[in-house]
């Protein structure tokens, strides 16, 4: 327990060498998560209610009884409410796709490293195959076969990103499975699943956690990219990526549409990346 507290301190509190304490970024992240969870309580208006006569109103204007604190979008919807609801999509897509791709990738990677022989060959060649197929191809195929929507965005991201975890898990498992304590566990009759999940996984979790944090930021960006290509979550659902990809068309006439969701997305990705960076520097100053 004390070790954990010490870790926490070193990671997130101000240190002698200066710099912004990572705690700040954890706080930003926490704030965004809270906004996402309590969106219906915080948002002043329904994010989907349109007002065709109140389109593209600048921040701080009022039209037909609606006060647009952050302005209105291309269909006269309240931007603030949409930014608040958008947090839900961006965060949940990233969380779910990291969990899914991590679970698949880590399991396969560990199996490959631990079992060797044909399992290793099959898994690692599958990794090669999946790394070679353009993500956009998979995205369009998923959409046309299964239909568009939130679930498929998560599936596309998981399907294209699991090889990252598999590689790291594989390499780490390879390095660790000959360690005396693993051999001891095996000699004492522990089954492969027990060895993998009780003895190996805890010891390779640190580098994987770093990968997952960095991937989290990427997932947020990829979700936005899919929206830009018209393959993201379905309109009119508010997502930062979708708002940004529409808002970029209004950079010189209605700057607020892109700026506010863009800023939130930026803060989210930056915080997660900085936390990941701090984590990786702390856990293993030599790698990555």
């Amino acid at each position: 327990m004390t070790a954990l507290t010490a870790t926490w301190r070193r990671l997130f509190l101000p240190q002698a060498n200066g710099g912004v304490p990572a705690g700040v970024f954890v706080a930003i992240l926490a704030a965004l998560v809270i906004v996402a969870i309590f969106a219906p309580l915080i948002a002043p208006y329904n994010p989907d209610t349109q007002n065709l006569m109140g389109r593209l109103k600048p921040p701080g204007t009022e039209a037909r009884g609606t006060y647009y604190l952050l302005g209105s979008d291309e269909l006269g919807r309240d931007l603030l409410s949409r930014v608040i609801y958008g947090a839900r999509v961006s965060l949940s897509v990233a969380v779910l796709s990291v969990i899914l791709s991590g679970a698949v990738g880590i399991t396969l990677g560990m199996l490959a490293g631990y079992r060797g022989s044909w399992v290793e060959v099959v898994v690692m060649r599958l990794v090669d195959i999946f790394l070679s197929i353009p993500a956009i191809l998979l995205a369009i195929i998923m959409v046309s076969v299964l239909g568009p929507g939130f679930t498929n965005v998560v599936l596309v991201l998981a399907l294209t990103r699991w090889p990252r975890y598999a590689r790291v898990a594989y390499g780490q498992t390879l390095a660790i499975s000959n360690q005396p304590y693993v051999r001891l566990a095996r000699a004492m009759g522990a089954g492969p699943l027990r060895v993998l999940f009780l003895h190996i996984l805890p010891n390779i979790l640190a580098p994987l956690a770093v990968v997952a944090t960095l991937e989290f930021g990427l997932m947020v960006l990829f979700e936005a990219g899919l929206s830009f290509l018209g393959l993201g979550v379905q309109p009119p659902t508010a997502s930062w990526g979708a708002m940004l990809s529409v808002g970029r068309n209004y950079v010189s006439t209605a700057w607020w549409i892109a700026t506010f969701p863009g800023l939130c997305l930026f803060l989210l990705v930056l915080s997660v990346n900085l936390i990941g960076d701090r984590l990786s520097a702390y856990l293993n100053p030599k790698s990555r």
Partner: protein
Amino acid sequence: MSVFLLQRLGQALVAIFGVMTLVFFIQRLTGDPTYLLVPETATQADIDALRRSLGLDQPLVVQYVNYLWDMLRLDFGTSYVQNVAVTEIIMSRLPYTLQLTGGALLVAFVIGLPVGLAMAIWRRYRATNLLMGVVLGAQSMPTFWSGILMIMVFGVWLRWLPPSGSGSFSHLIMPSIALGLLSMATYARIARSSILDEMSKDYIRSARARGVTTGRLVGKHLIRNSLIPVISISALEISQLLAGAVIVETVFAWPGLGQLTVQSVQARDFVVVQGIVLLGAFVTISVNLVADILYSVVDPRIRKGGRA
């Protein structure tokens, strides 16, 4: 050793074959391209006639066997949409992709390496932490947004650079930066850790003890020795860049393979997609193969063909 080589080579070929097969079939799950090729007024009979003339009316297995046979004869087919040989289409786009990838790598290097170096050497100063923040910030914006902001500022308001297109060095600058920003932080991080690693080694410590200045150390030893991991990560970064180029190429109207991929996938131009994926698979898998072999030469312990 040569048995290992042959095995790995065989596996690589199987992987390429796997990519080809997978892409062949999953593409055809998405339906067929004729709907996009006919005008709005076409009748079902017109659609059927076109499908016949493209050979898409045959059973899937027959199409697959024909495809493999064509591949064996190195015949990569003709685009459904453009009616031009796939090799010709890809070769006309390849130079642009190489330019953009090269430009992006250069940007990532030129900014990422010094930042990593500075962070390792002056790691006790607040400013270097901020530097990393800036580098990470640069990759925290979706490229389709940062891209259009760059176009507005440098292309429209300041008129320093052409807003989009290709054809001269100045056209290459903005897309390279937009794409390079994505890899910059990776390079900074790797440079930092490998230099830190290097600095903790005995020869550096003793040189320090002898009173060799930091500047000399950096110039003489640190950069050179820590470049190896940086270069080895580049192999992986390249395939990342190829994938990331889709959006950058769309925004900057850059005629590389990324744009071609999106357009061909959307048009269900199966033959072109197969060609692009085959090329991509060939590059990715051979890079991995070479890396594996090099690692096994350097470190016989990983003879099994694995690496971290």
